[in-house]
């Protein structure tokens, strides 16, 4: 069991800055995120896209923003629990008890939900019949490629993941790459390789095609694909791989009894607390009149929420507002030596 002053759900920029705002007030926090690394949407959706509206930073990438935030919070030594999702929460005398999908238990007076638009999960092919084949012959990510040797593999998608796996798996399996349009999106080198393999008959490319159906029964044998004019083709297939990026799902949060509207958690703008005492929501996931989905708004929300977190975590101490420029206490917490 891990006891802490605050649990932060979501390691995106706003969750990371919450660590900072709690940290300078002397509060310890633990961060939980479903992804395998910190950064949230900034890393998962647009690591290289430039951002132009972070105050005093004329231009930065999602990656550099994340790296700098991680550097900024290093002094506070918060633990990151990655690849992990909070499954259930319950309250006991003003203390929240959280349980993750890896059965880790946290107890804390404060939960800060900085979950963006939810946790990322792979997008699936739009065919219900495929569900029963999932993790047997239909995969949306690959953990063990040795299982894919000497098979007939149909890969759907037109981006980097689809192309990279098509090239890799074509070394030892029969690969058909299926995409809804003729253009593929990959590095020039990858596209060249693909063209070469196609010319040599080592990869089969079907465009513009999408999935239409699969065979009945327990074992995947073939798929049927169709183009925009409903022309169909049958392809013998043992394995289907789909690479359509990630989609955000709110997940278990919706069952925690929080007031929500349009997939957002309602908060007050004084301390960004939800209808449950000790649960805060900041960043893209919160909603209040005038809310803007900006990273800078999330930073502000985290700062205000951290004040209330302090009051809940240290009920016997008086909160004193301090500046980092002048507070010896804060500078000690930041490990600044003068």
């Amino acid at each position, binding site marked *: 069991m891990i006891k802490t002053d605050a649990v932060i759900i979501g390691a995106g920029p706003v969750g990371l800055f919450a660590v900072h705002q709690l940290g300078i007030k002397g509060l310890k926090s633990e961060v939980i995120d479903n992804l395998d690394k910190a950064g949230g949407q900034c890393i998962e959706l647009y690591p290289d896209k430039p951002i132009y509206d972070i105050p005093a930073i004329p231009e930065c990438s999602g990656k550099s923003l994340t790296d700098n935030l991680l550097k900024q919070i290093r002094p506070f030594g918060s633990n990151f629990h990655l690849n992990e999702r909070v499954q259930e929460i319950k309250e006991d005398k003003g203390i929240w008890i959280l349980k993750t999908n890896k059965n880790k238990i946290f107890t804390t007076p404060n939960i800060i939900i900085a979950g963006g638009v939810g946790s990322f999960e792979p997008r699936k092919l739009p065919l219900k019949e495929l569900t029963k084949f999932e993790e047997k012959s239909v995969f949306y990510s690959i953990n063990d490629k040795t299982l894919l040797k000497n098979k007939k593999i149909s890969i759907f998608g037109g981006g980097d993941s689809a192309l990279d796996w098509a090239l890799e798996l074509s070394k030892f399996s029969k690969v058909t790459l299926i*995409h809804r349009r003729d253009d593929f999106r990959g590095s020039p080198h990858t596209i060249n390789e693909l063209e070469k393999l196609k010319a040599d008959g080592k990869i089969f490319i079907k465009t513009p095609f999408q999935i239409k159906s699969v065979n009945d029964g327990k074992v995947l044998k073939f798929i049927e694909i169709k183009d925009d004019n409903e022309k169909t083709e049958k392809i013998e297939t043992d394995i289907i791989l789909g690479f359509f990026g990630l989609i955000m799902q709110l997940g278990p949060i919706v069952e925690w009894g929080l007031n929500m509207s349009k997939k957002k958690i309602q908060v007050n703008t004084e301390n960004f607390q939800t209808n449950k005492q000790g649960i805060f929501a900041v960043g893209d996931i919160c909603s209040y009149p005038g809310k803007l989905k900006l990273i800078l708004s999330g930073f502000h929300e985290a700062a205000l929420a951290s004040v209330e977190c302090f009051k809940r975590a240290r009920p016997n101490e008086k909160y004193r507002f301090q500046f980092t420029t002048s507070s010896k206490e804060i500078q000690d917490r930041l490990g600044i030596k003068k």
Partner: protein
Amino acid sequence: MFCILALFLYILILHLMPKITYIDQKGNSKTIEVDNGLTVMEGAIQNNVPGIDADCGGSMACATCHVYVEDSWFNKLPKAEEAEQDMIDMAYKPNKNSRLSCQIIVSDEINGLIVTTPEKQT
């Protein structure tokens, strides 16, 4: 007299606002007057038109504002950029008329635009 003039002007302005029609998969249709400069996605979100999620808020990062543009309108719209096409690849059941509604900016030129929302967005 002034009141009547004001009312007349008001009606005139209302009539000048482009109309966008959103149709769902069951055929239910909603026609909304949307301000110039807003996107077709924003028109839907601000007027509670179901079928458009817009999880990322219009930053072309999620493909949950995917719509099918009616044939007669499709070629009249400015073409989708590459980045939009890449994102449409991720959408639920895209077809040749697929666009992201966050990238269609409302103007007088598209007054009367008809879009159909997909069965679902994810």
